[in-house]
């Protein structure tokens, strides 16, 4: 019985892990952070599936093996009150798993939130009901826009602020998110690694237009980026000058 | 199967006119336990406002005190008033346990009047502070905590009023004493809480 149960759990876990890893969970990997988060996710799956499978297998097996059959209506099960050995085991094993995962997560957190190097490009992100606007300094002068442009493979720090209510600056492809909180500046840094356009989403309920508070980040090769920014700087200067 | 073989009593014929007396499974009396648990809840309510105080004064470093200094002397006087009302409350309790009707009456009236004096001074202080809750977050915290305490003084006074009515109707004595004991415990809590509020708001 024990051997076949163990076999069922191993096989079912393997199948479960296989299916769960085959699902394409995440959007495109757009930053240096993304592969790390995705790997972490895979680790979590590999750890979680066997736990779920074990619980459900033991339960279904019990139901199948010991369900009340006709004629057993008056019977009771054996008066097993517990087993200290078992209880110690199922306290210690989860403790080890939890400790390991937490350590991994803490190291990963410190890694993805490491302080940016001096001179990293800073983009000021301002959340307002219900739009984002972005300010950055370029060689061609300051740029203000509602769309975000970034050069590929160059680290960037976002300083995020809000003047009205709380928003959250989330780029799913970058796997990073932080709230825009009135009164304080929050920030995160990362390096875009993939050329293309990605969604910017407001993830914190901010009122009527929250669902529509979406924008786009366009990651460009450095040369293209320079050209686009020069154009935008010109436009920003024109707007600023006409004031 | 045998395990559950105790027969249930048949449907009740109505020969009972009341419930059976419950088994007393703890030495603590239920009313006293009730008010103590309620006080735990109240402490947590104050705790939340102290959390606000902590965030705004310490984390956010909004200037403290709000306005140009708080009237510490007035608040200290008020602390003395409330503390003495605790003493008179205790005296009322003791009188009740001894069946001293005159002592009870004088005690509860004195306690009540001291409580009213506290409230009067507090409201008067509000009017002469020179700032309002709208002035700043620190001011909001000041009014939030002292106002919350003031509201508790009012509740305490209401309870004392009830006890007073019952005392003057001769319903309280050594045998019938919980109606005084429970408001008394609450009143001591209100007094003690003022010491905490006073210390954090005015002294620190």
């Amino acid at each position, binding site marked *: 019985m024990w051997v076949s149960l163990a076999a069922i759990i191993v096989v079912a876990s393997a199948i479960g892990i296989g299916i769960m890893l085959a699902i394409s*969970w995440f959007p495109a990997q757009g930053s240096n952070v993304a592969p*790390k*988060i995705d790997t972490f996710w895979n680790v*979590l799956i590999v750890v979680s599936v066997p*736990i779920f499978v074990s*619980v*459900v297998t*033991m*339960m279904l097996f*019990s*139901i199948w093996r*010991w*369900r*009340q059959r006709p004629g057993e209506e008056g019977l009771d*099960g*054996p008066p*097993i*009150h*517990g*087993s200290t050995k078992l*209880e110690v085991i*199922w*306290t210690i094993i989860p*403790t080890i798993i*939890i400790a390991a995962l937490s350590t991994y997560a*803490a190291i990963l957190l410190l890694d993805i939130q490491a302080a940016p190097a001096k001179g990293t490009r800073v983009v000021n992100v301002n959340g307002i009901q219900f739009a984002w606007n972005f300010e950055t300094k370029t060689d061609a002068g300051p740029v203000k826009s509602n769309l975000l442009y970034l050069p590929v493979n160059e680290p960037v720090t976002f300083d995020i602020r809000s003047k*009205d*209510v*709380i928003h959250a600056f989330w780029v799913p492809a970058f796997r990073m*998110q932080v709230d825009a*909180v*009135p009164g*304080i500046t929050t920030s995160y840094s990362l390096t875009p690694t993939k050329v293309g356009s990605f969604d910017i*989403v407001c993830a914190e*309920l901010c*009122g*009527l*237009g929250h*669902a529509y508070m979406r924008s786009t980040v366009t990651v460009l090769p450095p040369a293209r980026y320079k050209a686009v920014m020069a154009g935008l700087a010109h436009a920003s200067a024109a707007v600023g000058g006409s004031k | *199967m045998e395990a559950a073989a105790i027969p249930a009593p048949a449907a*009740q014929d109505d020969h009972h*006119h009341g*419930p*059976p007396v*419950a*088994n007393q499974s703890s030495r*603590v009396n*239920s009313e006293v336990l009730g008010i103590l648990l309620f006080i735990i*809840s109240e402490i947590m309510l104050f*705790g*939340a406002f102290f*959390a606000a105080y902590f*965030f705004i004064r310490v*984390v*956010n470093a909004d200037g403290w005190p709000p306005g140009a200094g708080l009237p510490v002397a007035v608040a200290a006087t008020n602390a003395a008033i409330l503390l003495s009302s605790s003493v008179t409350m205790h005296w009322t309790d003791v009188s009740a346990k001894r069946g001293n009707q005159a002592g009870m009456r004088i005690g509860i009236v004195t306690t009540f009047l001291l409580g009213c004096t506290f409230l009067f001074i507090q409201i008067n202080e509000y009017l002469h502070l020179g700032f309002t809750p*709208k002035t700043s977050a*620190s001011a*909001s915290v000041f009014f*939030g905590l002292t106002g919350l305490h003031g509201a508790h003084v009012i509740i305490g006074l209401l309870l004392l009023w009830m006890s007073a*009515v019952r005392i003057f109707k001769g319903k309280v004595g050594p045998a019938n004493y919980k109606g005084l004991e429970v408001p008394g415990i609450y009143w001591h809590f209100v007094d003690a809480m003022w010491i905490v509020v006073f210390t954090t708001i005015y002294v620190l």
Partner: protein
Amino acid sequence: MASKIRQAGWYRALAFTILGIAVCIGLSTGLRAAFGLNPVYDGTAVLQISLLMVPIFFLGGIGCFDYWLRWASGRKVVDDHADHGAKSWKDYFKVNTDHKVIGIQYICVSFFFMFVGGLMAMLVRAELAAPGRQFVDPNTYNGLFSVHATLLIFLFVIPVFAGIANYVLPLMIGAPDMAFPRLNALSFWMLPLAGVMMLLSFLAPGGSFAAGWTAYAPLSVDAPIGQAFFTIAVQFAGASSIATALNFLVTIITMRAPGMTFFRMPLLVWANFSTSLLVVIATPFIAASQFMVLLDRALGFNFFNPAGGGDVLMYQHVFWFYSHPAVYIMMLPGFGIISEVLATRARKPVFGYRMMAFSLLAIVLLGFTVWAHHMFVSGMPNWVRIPMMATTAIIAIPTGIKIFSWVATLWRGVLKMDTPMLWATGFIAMFTLGGISGVMLAMVPLDIHVSDTYFIVAHIHYVLFGGSLFTIFAGIYFWFPKMTGRMFNEKLGKIHFWLTFVFFNLTFAPMHLIGVQGMPRRVSDYAEQFATWNMIISISSFILGLSSLLFLYNMVASWRSGPKASSNPWNSLTIEWQVSSPPPIFNFDTIPSVVGGPYEYGVPGAVHAIVGDPAKDLVPAGAGATEGHS
């Protein structure tokens, strides 16, 4: 008529309500005049004062305070138990001090709000069936999901557990009633008031409250007046749950039958003991958070106004210091129910009884140390986030102990897979999934990505629907014969389970995926790429919603004309099953005496309690039967 108005009841409640509104108008205009404010009549001010005070007038009218006021004024009070028990259905609409009547009142009212809240979920899913706008404008949409969550949390899951425990807990510990029957009645009557207030918010100018059930400042401070309905209704719901919790604690501590030591208490009693501790300690924090919002809104305080030096994150700290424990307030009583159902239907003692009790207490303790895991993307430094991640993950250990012990309880039992048991085992599977996604969410790096996405929506529904609601169904089916004296329709119960189980998973499992893929929560519109999944989810959710009608029909029809239930249809050992179904008006003739553990199934001749005629000589089980382990 005049005599009707003088008597406690609905006529007087109506008269008092009108009087209350008049008083509030007078108070508001009087105060404004005194402070020289213009205009003297301010509708918003009147509305807010009325929301605070009129419910109290109503409670006075319906008769919640009569006894106390008479007592306080020194008049003679007679406790003739005239308001005990229910002789007709009309008695359920009166102030009643019988814990069994109050239990039923609680359960019916909270299920009413479950259906209302569920209907709102259906509207939400209809809107989300396709991208773009279908039926409702964004403001109504935000209102719908906010009221949905608020109703189901404050008016369903929390009170329905209080209702079930109200009914069975005094019976289980061999008490004739709760410790404070009149406080019990008051806590019940505050509840429908809070619920009605939340629903009325839809009529407020500017629409209902729409800042989510979390009502984050400063959004909730700037929101239209509908938000005040939330702010104030939560005070009443909170006061109700504090009063009930206090009542449970005092009842459990002081009114246990002789012989009912703490380690002979059924685990449902343990669960409610733990829950009540959480409620008494944590609930004042949500009261405070909403008081502060109200003060900011109504009187211009600056608690959450950064321009005035206020602290926006402070709201979240205070709010979650309650609202994280609240998830255990919504789960621990369910743990208790599952232990009762499993032991009885598996005919085996609960595995590791003592650890089950201790893990409840461990969860209570740890529950207070993890609140900031809801704020991992709020801009907190790592030195707060990492410890909070660790404590959150640690809660998985006592929770795991419970799950493993339940499975071990099934092992080698004689499992009767009837409706309550299906719900209980279904719960174990679903809650394990919810627990696993909970541990994933505790991991900060992953949480950063999935915060405020549909992954959260999936997680919370696996915990609160697959978790709490499954246990509620298990409990309702399990104690239905005791409460009504009739049996429910077993076949319908099973169909109800399987429909719910299948469509619950089809509704909520895909939400994990679309959340990770990038769909934020609380949106009425979404990117095109999520359209297919949302359509599937919406269709499943409609069937899920319809399946609950089966439950409703089963309950109503069986209550009216189901076959009569015996006193102990499940052959349970605990005390509530040793009295008639429904129990006698005062529960017991004489207080039972407890002689053994509550789950001694399989021990020959084991007895938990001697109920009824103590003269009948029953042999208690050996001393070994009371030990935790054998």
